[in-house]
C-alpha cells in the first residue's frame, strides 16, 4: 500500500471530509424528501408523482391545499350560521329545573335513609342528626365542568343544615349564576368566530344564523345574481358532506363549477339553512388577496407545480445512498491514527464517558434538535401556509445537526469497540451488571461457606455455642419487636432490658476476645508461653493449655536437635584428635626413614619409593583430617564469625600472592583485574570475616592451582554484584576462571558435594573434594554465596559477599 495515501487516509482531514460530505448529502436528501412531501401534500400523492402537477393538468382549486383552506373557513361560517342564543338559554333553563328537582329529591331520599338507620327512636335520631348537621356550618354547592355542557351537582349532605326550601333557593341561585356564565361563554365563542372572519379581510360573507341575526361584512344582502356574476365556486361534493348545513349553489356540483374559476380568482359559495330560510341565501365568498391563507396556498401551488418530482426523487435516493456509504467509510476510518510507524487505534477523550451516558446525552440532544423543529413544522403545516417554502431548508438544517449528533455518538462507539474495550463493558449499565455479577458470585460463595459452616460440628468447643449465637439473635429480635409494638412505660422497660442484655453479651465477648488475643500474642513471641489460664473461658483454657504443650514439645525437640548436633561435632572433633596422634608418628617416622634412605643407610630403590608413598599419603591424610574437621564445623554452622569491614581488593591481592608462586611453577599466570580488564584500584568494602573469606578464596585458588592445565592463564575478577533498588550494588563478587587440565565430566552441583573431585577417573590427585564444600558453607554463613559454572574445560567459581553497609 502506498504510504502517502495511508498517511492521508487516517488524518483528521480525510475523516472530516468524509463526515462533511455525508452530512451535506444527507441534508440534501432530506431537503428533497421534504420537497416531495410538501408536493404530495399540495397535490395529492398520485397527482404529484405522476407529474400531473408539473404538466399543469391539475387546477389550483382541485388541490388538497386549496380544499383545506376552504374547509377551514366553512367550519367557522357554519358555527356562525348555527348561532341561536335564545334557544340556548331556553335549553339551559329547562335543564335547570330538572337538575334542581333532582338534587332536592336526592336530599329527601338521604334524609329518609338516615331516619331508617335508627329504628324505634326515629324522631330522636332525626333530631340528633339535625342538631349535628346544623352545628357544622352547612353549605350547599354544586359544580360543573368547564368544557362539558353536562351539569354536575354535588350536595354536601354531611354538612347539610338547610331546609328543603333553602336548598331549592340556594340551588336556583347558584344555577342562575352558572347559566349566566354559560351564556357568556357561548357569546364569547360566537364573537371569536366573528373576529376570526373579520380578520380575514379577503373573505366576504353574509351569514344569517338560526335565530335570525345576520353576520356580514357586505354592505347589503347579495342577490343570486351577484353570486353568479362573481363566478361562483364550491367545494366538491364528497368534501361537502363533512360540512353540515353547507350546500351547493343551485344544486350544481363542484366539478362543473370549478373549471370555470380562473386561477387566482375569487372563490364563492353558498351556505343554505334549509330549516329557516327557504330561498333565502346566506352567502360568503373567499376573495384572492395577498394576506390570507388562500394566497399562501396559491403561492405554494405555483412553486410546487414546476417541481420535477422524478428528479427530486432520484436525487434523494442517490443522496441518501451516497451519504450512507460515506458515513460507513467515516465510521471505518474513525479511531485509527497513522503515527508514522504504522496505524494505531486510539480513543478520544469523550470516549472515556460511559457508553450509555453518552448515548443518553446524545439521544436527548438528538430529540431536542429533531423534535423542536418538527413540532414547529407541524404547527406551520396546519396554520401558516406561507412558512411552507422554508420547510425544506429547515428540514435540511435540522437533519444536518441531528446527523452530526448521531455521527458523533456512533464514532465514539466505533472507537470504543475498535480499541477492544467492548461497548457493553464500557457502559455504566454493563459495569453495574458486572458488579452485580461479581457480587453475585461472592454472595453465592459466602452462602456456600455459611451453609458449610452451619453443618460444622465443633470438635473442641461445646455444641451449645451455636445455640448461644442463635439464642442471642432471637432474644434481640424478640426484644426489639416487642419494643416496636408496645407503647408506654413497658417500652422503656424493654429498652433497658435490651441494653442490659447486649451489654452483658458484649462484656462476655470482649473477655473472650481478650483471652484469645493474649494467646495469640503469647504464641507469636519467643519468650516462654505464659498465658494466665485463670479467668479464661473453658474453650480458651484448653487452647492455652494445648499451646503450652506444643511449645514444650517443640522446645524439647529443639534442645534435642541442638544436643545431637553438638554431640556429632564433638564426636568428629574427638575422632580427628585421636587420629592425629598416630598420624604424627607416621609422618615423623616415614620422614626419618626417608632421611636414612637419602644417606644410603637403607636398602634398595624400591624401599625408598615405598617410604615416599607412605610419607606423601600421611601428609595427605593430615590435610584430609583438617578439612574434615572444618567441613563438619562449617556445615553445622559451628564456627565463630568475626565479621568486620574488609577491603576485598586487598584481601584478594593478599590471597593471590600466597598462591601465585606455586601457580607460576606450573606455568600458570594469574591475572587479577576488575570487570573492565584493568587492575582494580578502588576499595571494595565487604562485611565479612577476614580469616574465613581468605579461606574461601584460598580453597578456590588452591583448586585452580592444582587442577589448571599447564601454561594456561587463570583469571581473577573483582566486580560489583547486581544492583539493588537504589541502583547501588548490594554485593561484591570475586570470580575465578581457570582451564581444567582434565575434562570436567561432572555437573557444578555434584562438584559442590563433599568428597567429589572434578575428575572421577583419576584417583591420584592432591585434593580431597572438601574445599568447595567448605568454601560454599563459609560463604553461606557470611550471608554470601558460591556459584560454580562449568563450560567445557572452563571452570568458573563466583563468590558473592554482602557489601559493607555505609
Amino acid at each position: 500500500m502506498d504510504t502517502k495515501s495511508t498517511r492521508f487516509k487516517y488524518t483528521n482531514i480525510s475523516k472530516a471530509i468524509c463526515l462533511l460530505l455525508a452530512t451535506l448529502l444527507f441534508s440534501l436528501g432530506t431537503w428533497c424528501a421534504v420537497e416531495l412531501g410538501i408536493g404530495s401534500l399540495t397535490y395529492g400523492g398520485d397527482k404529484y408523482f405522476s407529474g400531473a402537477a408539473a404538466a399543469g393538468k391539475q387546477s389550483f382549486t382541485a388541490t388538497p391545499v386549496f380544499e383545506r383552506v376552504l374547509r377551514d373557513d366553512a367550519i367557522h361560517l357554519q358555527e356562525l350560521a348555527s348561532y341561536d342564543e335564545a334557544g340556548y338559554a331556553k335549553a339551559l333553563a329547562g335543564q335547570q329545573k330538572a337538575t334542581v328537582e333532582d338534587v332536592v329529591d336526592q336530599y329527601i331520599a338521604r334524609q329518609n335513609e338516615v331516619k331508617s338507620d335508627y329504628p324505634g327512636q326515629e324522631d330522636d335520631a332525626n333530631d340528633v342528626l339535625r342538631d349535628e348537621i346544623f352545628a357544622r356550618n352547612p353549605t350547599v354547592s354544586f359544580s360543573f365542568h368547564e368544557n362539558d355542557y353536562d351539569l354536575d351537582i354535588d350536595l354536601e349532605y354531611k354538612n347539610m343544615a338547610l331546609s328543603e326550601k333553602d336548598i331549592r333557593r340556594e340551588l336556583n341561585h347558584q344555577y342562575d349564576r352558572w347559566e349566566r356564565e354559560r351564556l357568556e361563554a357561548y357569546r364569547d365563542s360566537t364573537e371569536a368566530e366573528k373576529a376570526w372572519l373579520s380578520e380575514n379581510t379577503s373573505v366576504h360573507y353574509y351569514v344569517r344564523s338560526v335565530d335570525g341575526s345576520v353576520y356580514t361584512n357586505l354592505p347589503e344582502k347579495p342577490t343570486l345574481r351577484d353570486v353568479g356574476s362573481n363566478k361562483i365556486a364550491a367545494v366538491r361534493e364528497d368534501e361537502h358532506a363533512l360540512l353540515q348545513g353547507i350546500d351547493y349553489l343551485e344544486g350544481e356540483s363542484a366539478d362543473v363549477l370549478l373549471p370555470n374559476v380562473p386561477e387566482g380568482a375569487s372563490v364563492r359559495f353558498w351556505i343554505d339553512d334549509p330549516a329557516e330560510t327557504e330561498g333565502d341565501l346566506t352567502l360568503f365568498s373567499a376573495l384572492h388577496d395577498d394576506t390570507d391563507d388562500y394566497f399562501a396556498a396559491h403561492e405554494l401551488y405555483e412553486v410546487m407545480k414546476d417541481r420535477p418530482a422524478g428528479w427530486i426523487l432520484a436525487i434523494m435516493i442517490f443522496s441518501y445512498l451516497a451519504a450512507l456509504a460515506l458515513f460507513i467509510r467515516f465510521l471505518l476510518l474513525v479511531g485509527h491514527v497513522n503515527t508514522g510507524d504504522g496505524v494505531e487505534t486510539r480513543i478520544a477523550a469523550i470516549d472515556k464517558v460511559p457508553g450509555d451516558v453518552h448515548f443518553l446525552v446524545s439521544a436527548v440532544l438528538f430529540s431536542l434538535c429533531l423534535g423542536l423543529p418538527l413540532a414547529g413544522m407541524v404547527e406551520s403545516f396546519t396554520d401558516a401556509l406561507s412558512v411552507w417554502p422554508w420547510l425544506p431548508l429547515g428540514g435540511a438544517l435540522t437533519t444536518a445537526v441531528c446527523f452530526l449528533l448521531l455521527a458523533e455518538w456512533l464514532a465514539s462507539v466505533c472507537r470504543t469497540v475498535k480499541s477492544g474495550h467492548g461497548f457493553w463493558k464500557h457502559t455504566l449499565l454493563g459495569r453495574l451488571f458486572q458488579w452485580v455479577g461479581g457480587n453475585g458470585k461472592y454472595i453465592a460463595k459466602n452462602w456456600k461457606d455459611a451453609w458449610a459452616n452451619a453443618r460444622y460440628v465443633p470438635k473442641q468447643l461445646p455444641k451449645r455455642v451455636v445455640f448461644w449465637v442463635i439464642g442471642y439473635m432471637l432474644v434481640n429480635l424478640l426484644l426489639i419487636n416487642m419494643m416496636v409494638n408496645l407503647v408506654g412505660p413497658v417500652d422503656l422497660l424493654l429498652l433497658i432490658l435490651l441494653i442490659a442484655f447486649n451489654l452483658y453479651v458484649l462484656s462476655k465477648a470482649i473477655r473472650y476476645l481478650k483471652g484469645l488475643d493474649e494467646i495469640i500474642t503469647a504464641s507469636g513471641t519467643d519468650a516462654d508461653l505464659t498465658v494466665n489460664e485463670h479467668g479464661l473461658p473453658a474453650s480458651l483454657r484448653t487452647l492455652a493449655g494445648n499451646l503450652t504443650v506444643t511449645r514444650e514439645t517443640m522446645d524439647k525437640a529443639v534442645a534435642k536437635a541442638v544436643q545431637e548436633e553438638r554431640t556429632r561435632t564433638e564426636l568428629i572433633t574427638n575422632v580427628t584428635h585421636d587420629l592425629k596422634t598416630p598420624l604424627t608418628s607416621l609422618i615423623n617416622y616415614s620422614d626419618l626413614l626417608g632421611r636414612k634412605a637419602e644417606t644410603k643407610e637403607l636398602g634398595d630403590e624400591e624401599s625408598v619409593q615405598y617410604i615416599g608413598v607412605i610419607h606423601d599419603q600421611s601428609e595427605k591424610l593430615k590435610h584430609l583430617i583438617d578439612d574434615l574437621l572444618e567441613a563438619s564445623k562449617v556445615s553445622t554452622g559451628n564456627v565463630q564469625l568475626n565479621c568486620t569491614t574488609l577491603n576485598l581488593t586487598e584481601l584478594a591481592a593478599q590471597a593471590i600472592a600466597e598462591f601465585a608462586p606455586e601457580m607460576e611453577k606450573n606455568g600458570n599466570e594469574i591475572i587479577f583485574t576488575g570487570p573492565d580488564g584493568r587492575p582494580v584500584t578502588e576499595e571494595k568494602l565487604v562485611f565479612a570475616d577476614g580469616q574465613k573469606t581468605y579461606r574461601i578464596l584460598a580453597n578456590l585458588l588452591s583448586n585452580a592451582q592444582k587442577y589448571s592445565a599447564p601454561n594456561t592463564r587463570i583469571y581473577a575478577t573483582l566486580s560489583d554484584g547486581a544492583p539493588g533498588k537504589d541502583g547501588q550494588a548490594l554485593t561484591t563478587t570475586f570470580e575465578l576462571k581457570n582451564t581444567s587440565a582434565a575434562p570436567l565430566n561432572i555437573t557444578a552441583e555434584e562438584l559442590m558435594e563433599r568428597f567429589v573431585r572434578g575428575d572421577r577417573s583419576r584417583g591420584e590427585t592432591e585434593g580431597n573434594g572438601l574445599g568447595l564444600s567448605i568454601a560454599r558453607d563459609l560463604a553461606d554463613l557470611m550471608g554470601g554465596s558460591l556459584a560454580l559454572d562449568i563450560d567445557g574445560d572452563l571452570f568458573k567459581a563466583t563468590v558473592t559477599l554482602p557489601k559493607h553497609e555505609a
Partner: protein
Amino acid sequence: MYTVLVCDDDRAILESIRIYLSAEGYDVLTATDGREAIDLLKDHDVHCLVLDIMMPHMDGLTAMLKIRETSNVPVILLSAKSEDTDKITGLSFGADDYVTKPFNPLELVARVKSQVRRYAKLGSMEISEHVLVTGGLELDTDKKRVTVDGEEVRLTALEYQILEYLMRNMGHVLSSAQIYEAVWNEPALSTEKTVTVHIRNIREKIEIDPKNPNYLKVVWGLGYKVDKI
C-alpha cells in the same frame, strides 16, 4: 650443649622428636606426663620444653602453670587441638610457641632452635635505639641488617625497606597501598600485588612456617602488621 625436655604421653612421638632433636645436637630429656616433666626440670638445666597438652595424670597446661611459678624456660606447646581458641589459651597461659599435631618435624626443630637461641642469648643482648626488636626478629637500622634469633637474614633492599616500615609501625595494620606509598614513595595505583609478593618473600625468609607467620602477620582484607612480642 643445650638441653631440651620433651614431654608427651605417646612414646612413638616422643621417640621421634628425640631422634630429630638429638640429630641437631641437643641433649634430649623425655617425660610421659606433666609430673614427670616438673620433676625433671628440678634436676636439670633445661633450655627448652616441648610439652604435649593432653596427657594423663597432669596435663600440659597444668604442668606449664606449675613450671611458670619458678621458671621462665621457653615452652612449646604440642597439641592435636588446632582451634584458634586452643592456641590463644595456650599462649596466654605462658607458652612461647604452639605447634599442632601432626607437625612437620623440621618445623618443630626450627622452633626449638629459635626458642633455645633466644633463651640462651637473653640478657646478653645489647639493646640500642637503632635496633628494632620483636621476639627473635631484630632489625638494625644503622647497619641495615636483619637477624632472626641471631642469624642474619639476607633481604633485598625493597624487602628491607618494607620490613623496616612495618617494624617502625609495630602493632599497626598497614595496607599494601600504604606500604607502597611509604617504600616506593609514589602514589599507589593497584600495585598491591607488588607489595604482597614482596611480603610473601620476606615471610619466607624470616618465618619458620611462612604459612603460619610468627612475626609478619597477614590481616586478611586489611593489610599486614608486625606485632611486638
